Structure formats: structure tokens, C-alpha cells
């Protein structure tokens, strides 16, 4: 399952991140394989807001579609 399909309010564990520079950016933020996230909201057009480690980040739908998760 990909992060862009996570319904509002549900939690998930990240299983795979996309490669390349964006991966380094995720690692810096603390978003690594095994991290737990929660979907806070979903905006029209696919933008998704997730919470992890007491912080919230917004991701575009395309980016979320490249992150594999296991729903908890």
C-alpha cells in the first residue's frame, strides 16, 4: 500500500522510501523506513498531511504515491 491511499486518522509504518535526493531529505526530517506516521488530513488534489515525531508535514500526492507503507 502507498501513503497516498492512507485514510484520514489512520496510522501506518513506512516500509520503503523513493531513491535519490528526496530520500536524503526524508532521512533528515526523520522519516525513515520503520517510522510511524499518521494521516492528519487529505486535501482535494491529493496533497496529504501526515504527523510523525510530533511534527506535521505536507506532501504532494505524487510524492506520497512513492512511499510504501503498512497500515497499522
Amino acid at each position: 500500500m502507498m501513503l497516498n491511499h492512507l485514510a484520514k486518522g489512520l496510522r501506518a509504518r513506512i516500509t520503503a522510501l523513493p531513491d535519490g535526493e528526496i530520500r536524503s531529505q526524508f532521512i533528515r526530517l526523520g522519516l525513515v523506513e520503520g517510522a510511524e506516521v499518521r494521516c492528519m488530513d487529505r486535501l482535494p488534489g491529493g496533497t496529504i498531511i501526515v504527523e510523525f515525531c510530533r511534527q506535521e508535514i505536507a506532501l504532494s500526492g505524487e510524492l506520497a504515491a512513492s512511499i510504501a507503507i503498512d497500515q497499522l
Partner: protein
Amino acid sequence: MSVPSVEHKPHHHIRTESLPGDTLKPRVVLVGNPNVGKSVVFNYLSGLYVDVSNFPGTTVEVAKASYLQYDLFDTPGVYGVSSFNDEERVARDIILNADIIVNIVDAVHLERDLFLTQQLIDMGKRVCVIVNMIDEARKQKLAVDLATLEEELDVPVLGTVAIRKEGLDGIHALITRAREGRQREALHAELHRMLSVVGSQAEALLVLEGDPIIAARHGIAASDAAHREEIYIDRRNRVNRIVHHVVKDVQTRKLLSTRIGRASVSPWFGFPILAFVLYLVYLFVGVFVAQDVVGITEGDIGKGIVEFHIKEFIAAHAAVTVTATLLDDDDEVIEERAERFANGVKGEADRWRSMRAWVAERPAEYDFAFENPWLVLFFGEFGAVTMTLTYLVFLLLPLVLGFYFALSILEDSGYLPRLATLVDRTLRFVGLNGRAVIPLILGFGCVTMATITTRLLGTQREKTIATTILQLAIPCSAQLGVIAALLATAGVQATLIYTGVIFAFLVLVGTIMNRSLPGEISPLLIDLPAMRLPQLNNVMKKTGFKTWFFMKEASPWFFIGALAVSILQVTGALVHIMDALQPLVTGWLQLPREAATAFVMGLVRRDFGAAGLYDLSLSPYQTVAALVTITLFVPCVASLMVMLKERGLHEGMIIWVGSLVLAIGIGGVVSQVLL
């Protein structure tokens, strides 16, 4: 957990590059993620005198101040040191040249922020750490053990609440204790091997992490992405271990953001809140500043007092024809009187006194027509000195102050990233990322100011697209006022056609550029900080810096622009240009021949262009055609100059010539279809 300390061989701290405003004092550099309160600390330490300048070779602004025996540098907020975008490259170069680093972290988000801290330590820099917002951590029931953090990192740590100035008096002692922290042994060994090649541990680390620019500086190949990831993952694990030791009560999961923060990015409330915020900004900047304040500063003070006294002073002994025009409350002409003073107004003081007495206290405008061409050049109708002064100080300055004030409040409240999140989807249609919303909004204030702000966009591609849209399709506040007035007389249908054409054109240009320019839109990945009440003190200081920086950057261009037009006028070239434009204006655009004057004047100031259309008694459809042309037409000379500087001569000229062709082309098509 214990991390073995590593024996330190001597490191070479060489200062390879010069920074703006370089002195020989030790350099203290503030480094931190965005939204950790770095600017508050910088403002606290810097005092009143701050020097803001472009970092050499880039368009990123860097603030520098004197602090005790140090030179204090601010850096753009970054999540790590690398070369992913312009801001990171600038932060990286300042950090490489730092003697002491003050790293500011957010007590609530140590998992995220300590990654940068550990990277700075891995660079072998002397580091000290300010853990800010400890009040917020307390509120969220997080116990942050600063002593353990200090032990783990092996650098001094200070807890603060910067916005309340709590703990900030300890920064000086903290800086004197700054030291090289603890690194992982394997990495340290690897660094020392690379050290023999590049000469400094900081650069050695960046090469190992695959920084292509640093590697190229030393003529060696950067490590591949896999190696960077290995180091990153290792660092991430170490940081997570540290946080595990330092922060207690992590298990209590709570909804952390405020209700407003949550609602502002929810599908149901987000867009109404966005509309409300934009409406407030419009009321403040568009109505209060642009109309009320500027009405007083430009009309009464600028033209009425300052410009009048300058011209009267210059006209003291120079041949001049003065025209006094009496106006009623609606600025309609009541009566006019012109007199020639061959020996100047001081030379013929009695006649001048009687002319002033005739005007008495009634509202009036004076026009000084000098006979000496040099005086016309600098003090005439479009005099470079008088016009620049009035325009810059009395029109633009209040507007820019107003806009930056509003922007600083949005920034400090934490709303800006939410705004970017909401509009990201929409802006992708025109090839932009959500962050581009800031320059686009600023464009409605002043396109010149907005063009400078495109610097905050991540990629060259986004800068090009945003600049093009700004220069082409966004009318600035000066122009908007006149456009609104003209459309009010032209009627609802004309207004709808005008708005439709401009909007369709904006989308079309954005879409075409998005399709044709190489590269992709950078994906939205944005941190939403907690919403906070902005501190007035900090907002004022930010507004002051930004405004000062803008005026410093743009003022010479406004003067040069005014001078150029003034020269065209004095030499008579202006008339020839207008004559040359006649066929296009009357034939293709189907407008009265005087409209050519309005278009050329639009070069000086966009609103002059639109204002020139007032007196032409156009039909509603002619108004639409004229306004479409004027809106798409070249922005004022100052914004052209700033664009050339920001985007380079080549790209700038393409955009400029393109806008000329498109303005006349589209305006003509509209005219041919409607009329």
C-alpha cells in the same frame, strides 16, 4: 549508551573564501532548521546595525552584524548541509568558513533538528547548541534533559525561550565554550583519510556525502548517493538514540497543533480561512496603505510639499514657466494660470508672490516647465531626481513596508507553509510549487519587489516561470487602482472579459512554460510548524530589514529608469517613439492615437500608462483592449532592470521582448474580436 571518544589529530581550519563585508574578527554563524526561532536570536544578538547583502554569485540574502568581539552571520534555514538548493549552498559556504557555529534547535522537534547538529559536529566545527522553545516542550509534557544532551553531543547546550528572551543572556558564555563534539569512530577515521586530500574536515565530510560542488573544488570525484545514504542513516540512528536518552514521555501521543493550525489545512475550513486571510491582507495593504496612506504621503507630502519646494528652489534664478492648476474635490480642473519667469521665481519675487496669493489655500497642482534642458532632465515633469524621490520614498516605501509587514506576520505566525500547502495543487497547473504563492501575491503590491522575492523558489525553472508570470500578467497595486476605476465605468461585461482574458492568458503561459522548459516541478514536501502569535518586535525588525534591503537593491534602477525616460523626453526621442507606434495603436488595436502616449508612459510607471487612458473617452470594448495591452505590456523600467539583474540579460530580454509582442498581439486580437 556510550560513544567512544576519538583521539583528535590536529585539523586544518582554513579560511578559503571571503564572505560579504569580511573582517578579521572570528566568525560566529547561526545555523538552524526553518522556524526554530533563529531570526529572534539573531535580532537579539545583532542590535540595531545589520548589513544585508547578496551572497557572492547568488541571489540569496545574507545578514551580517557585529556582536561583541565577533562577526555574526545569519544563514538561511536548512535541514542539513548539502547542495540541494540555492539556500543550502549558501548556508553550506558560510558554515564552511565559520569559526564557531551556534546551532539553534527546537526542543519539541529534536529528532528532526539534531540531524543537522550531528552533521555540524561531524564537520569538525566548533559547535554550541541552543535548545529553543523549551516552554513549548514543557507544555507538551516533554522532559528534555539538557545535561544528558550536552554529554551525548559533547558540545555545550543552553535552553532558551527566545521570543521571551529567557536564557538568551547565556549565549555569550555558551559561545566561549563552543567545541568540537563527538563523532562516530568509523566516520572519523574515514574523514581523516579524506582530510589529506581536501584539507579541512568539513569539506572532507561533504565530499564523502557526495557533494558534487565541494568535490569539484578539489578536483576529485564525490562519493555516490549510496555512500551518502549510509552516512545519513547512521547519523539518523545516532540522533534517534540520543533523543531516546534525552527526551522523556515521548509515548504520550497528542494532537499538537492548535485548532487554527489544523483547520487552516483542512479541506473544509482551509480555503475559507485562506480567503479570509487574503482579504485581511488586501484591506491592510490594498486599501489602508495603498489608498489612505499613499494618498497622504504621495499626494500631500511628496508632490505637494517636497517636490514643490525642490522645484521652487531650483527655479529661484532659472527661466521657467509655472502653471498653477486649481482642482476641486474630485481632482477636476477649475481654473489654470500660467506665467513665465525669465529670471526665476526669486528673480521676480513679487510676481511669484502674487501667483501664490492667487492660489492661496485652495487645492492646486504646480507644474514647473524649465527652459534649461539639464534642469528638465533632473527636475522637469519626468525629472529623474524629483520623480524618483516622490515615487520611491512617498509611494513605494509605504507600500513595501505594508507588504513586508503583512508577510512577516504570516511568516512568524506559521501560516505561510500552510498557505503554500493549500495552493500547491492549483499552482502546479502553471508549473509552480506552493511556495510560489508568496511572490505572486507580492506582485499585486509591486512587481519589482515580487521579482526580487522569486529568490526563495527552489529551482531556476520555477524562478523563470514565476518571473515571467509576474512581469506579464500580474498588475501591480499602482496599476490596479487605475484599472479598477476604468473598468467601473466600462461595466460588468467589460470587467468579466478583461479578467477572463488575463486569467486565461496567465494559465496558458504557465502551462506552455511548464510543458516546454526542461525539468520538473519540485514536489511539495513542507514542514508545518506550530501556529504562534507573532511577536510585534520581531515582525517590525524583519519588516525593517527586508524593506531596507529592497530599497537598497531597487532604488538605483528606479533612478536610472526615470533618467532614461527623461533623456528620451528632452531629446525629443519620446515623440518619435510615439509616432512610430501610431499605426499599431490606431490600426491594429483600434484605439485613439493618444493611447500611444499612455503606453510609452507605462514604461516609466505602470500606473502612468493606465492613467493616460482616463482622458481618452474609450468605449467599453476599447477599454478592455487597452487594459489588456497595458496589463500584459512591459512593467515599469525598475522591474525590467531588476528582472535583468535577477534572471540575467539573455533570459530577461527574452521575457521583455516576449511581453511586448504578446501585449500588442493579444490586445489586438481582443480588439479585432470585440470591435
